[in-house]
């Protein structure tokens, strides 16, 4: 077992652990924190694969922006752990919902296992030290992938505008009283329309 392998195994274990814990949590904030843990571990794997730039970007974008946004929303809506969210599923539903992902993983295993993949990637320091550096990625991005990049920019713009439009509260609408943060045992009001 080389050092590379050890690093990989550790970070992979952390990533899987974080991901597993994320979906097991009742408390959304804890979920977010475990996801960050998983992402950091994945960033390590990225770095190991020579994607230094993307590893940093993963932390900056996900941990620094997207998940802060998640936390922000969680705080804004004051979402505490809620027993309703962890009530057990009916047995049949539980079975299918477990069986389907498991089946998928098994299937993917067949794909991964049966196909002959390209040769083994090297460790942190490859033959080409520039591989995955900001410069190479950026050069590729601004030449061959200019068009997708620009489209992504447009997509982001649209998303920003869309998010603002969707989340904006109509000024005419009377403001709903927001529950105070102290109200720990808030019962969600069942508003299912008949």
């Amino acid at each position, binding site marked *: 077992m080389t050092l590379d392998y050890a690093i990989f195994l550790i970070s992979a274990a952390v990533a899987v652990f974080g991901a597993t814990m994320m979906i097991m949590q009742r408390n959304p904030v804890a979920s977010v924190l475990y996801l960050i843990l998983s992402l950091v571990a994945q960033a390590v794997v990225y770095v190991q694969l020579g994607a230094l730039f993307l590893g940093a970007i993963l932390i900056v974008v996900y941990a620094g922006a997207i998940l802060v946004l998640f936390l922000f929303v969680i705080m804004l809506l004051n979402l505490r752990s809620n027993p309703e969210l962890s009530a057990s599923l009916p047995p049949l539903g539980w079975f*299918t919902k477990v069986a389907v992902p498991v089946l*998928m993983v098994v299937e993917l295993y067949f794909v991964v296992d049966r196909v002959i993949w390209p040769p083994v990637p090297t460790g942190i320091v490859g033959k080409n030290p520039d591989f995955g550096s900001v410069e190479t990625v950026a050069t590729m991005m601004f030449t061959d992938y200019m068009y997708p990049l620009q489209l992504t920019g447009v997509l982001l713009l649209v998303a920003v505008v869309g998010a603002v439009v969707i989340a904006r509260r109509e000024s005419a609408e009377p403001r709903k009283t927001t529950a105070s943060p102290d109200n720990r045992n808030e019962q969600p009001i069942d508003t299912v329309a008949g």
Partner: protein
Amino acid sequence: MSEYLFWIPLLPLLGFLINGLLLGKLPRPVVSAVACVSVGLSFVLSLLLFFELRSLPPAAREIEQVLFTWIAAGSFHVDIAFLLDPLSAVMILVVTGVGFLIHVYSTGYMHHDKDFGRYFAYLNLFTFSMLTLVLANNFLLMFVGWEGVGLCSYLLIGFWFHKKSASDAGKKAFIVNRIGDFGFLLGMFIIFWQVGSLEFKTVMEQAPAMFVAGGGLITAACLLLFVGATGKSAQIPLYVWLPDAMEGPTPVSALIHAATMVTAGVYMIARSSVLYMMAPDALMVVAIIGAATAFFAATIGLAQNDIKRVLAYSTVSQLGYMFLACGVAAFGAGIFHLMTHAFFKALLFLAAGSVIHAMSEKQDMREMGGLKKYLPITYMTMLIATLAIAGIPGLSGFFSKDEILWKAFSSQHGHWLLWLVGFITAGLTAFYMFRLIYMTFHGKERMDEHTRSHIHESPRSMTVPLMALAVLSVIGGYIGMPHIFGVTNYFEEWLAPVVHGPGHQAASHALAAAGADTSMEWALMAASVILVIIAIFVARHFYNKKPEAATAMAEKMSGMKTLLANKYYVDEFYGATVVRPIVNGSLFLWKFVDVVIIDGTINGLAVISRDISEVLRYVQGGKVRNYATVFVAGVIVLVAYFIFG
């Protein structure tokens, strides 16, 4: 100068846009100023361009301006392009000139109407469409103008759409026109199919090479184009809409249904003269239809009592003359008559409008009489126009009508029967026109007291155009005096490069030079003049001197009179043969095919799907996770297919 060509149609369009977009926002003086000035400027521009065109040598008289490519699809290429040649120059002068006078007239006539702005917007739009039609350098753009004038005609006939008769008349005009347009389109398809272009110049140049002269294809194309012309120019069998079109405001009748739009068919045939020259059979059909229409409409005109209807049938009849001219390959004569007719018929309509205006919107001649002293200017101008249309020597109508008659007789495509029909029609024309004059302006005052107290001469804005048109009606013919007077026929010469194939031109010259038939021409001319004078005196006898004689006569020939008064029951005939089957067929389609079969099928499907949905809706629980589960399961199946399949 020539680069300003596109402004001629554009100016009325601007007028339309201003008046149309600011509908009801502009004060009336501004509306009328915009409308009149745009058309007036267009007229001035037309004049300038006309003189520029005239300064060119005859062979090179052609100004073409390509604005931009409209359609370019494979080999199909159409430009928005305007072509000014002698033919279209005459037409734009008539359209903008007469149009301008009628615009001015309308400011007085429509003064009390609440939809003043809408009226002028339509009128400007019409002028724009007509100019597009006339100036187009290809069939398709011409068709755009063609449809445009049809639309404006529909809009203006139905201008007072709150009146059911008006909106019905508008619809009738539109539908009948559509039948004709269908023919026009098919004709266009044939031309494009054979020649591969719709541009006039290309078509005219290529046609001799692409078509077999006198062959079935060219005849079919020409006949289909002629179907279009019969629709637009109210010829048998599609003339029925024009008399009904008199529901529109009178200036509209003058502009659209007398002077310009209805002549579009004549213009189109003259424009395609090269094609028609290659299809003698089609020419013959045109001539026969024209002559028949001329006679037929004139006879109906004898028995009408509505002043505008008389004029409407007169218009149909005169249009028949023009087609007769075209049919005998005397395109120049047809266009000449088109022009003079535009002057005097516009004048007649406007004068009739003035009378109606004075008569508090009454149109029945039986309630008129003795108006001469109330409406001196109207009377004088209308009399001039009547003399012109009747063909009294020295007035414009005489020259053009006489040329047509002579060509009908003498042309190699002509026939003495055609001449005879035209000759008789000339007499009938003089008769019914003077009947109109006598019933309206002479004799006893038959209107009621209330109306009489309101009779007044029209305002200056209406009488000035009348006088202008009267002058034109008098002098308009002198540009086209026949050869036998020992002068050059400027008009024919002017049009020669466009409407005559080279061979025909030579033949015409040869004919003139030979001078052999001069005596015959003189004789025919004298005969028609004498006939006209007799007809006038008969009219005077019946409708001025002895009205009771007319009544007695009518009683004697009551069957005939009923037939004529009811327009030969053509509308009823169409109603029974065309409209009724269509209505019945539509009812069948509606009540059975649509309601039972189609709706039944749809409803059946709906019932079936509802019943199925009743069961299936339990799948749609609205739970996103269930959907996602199914989705992932589907992905699994797909992936499995790709792995193991």
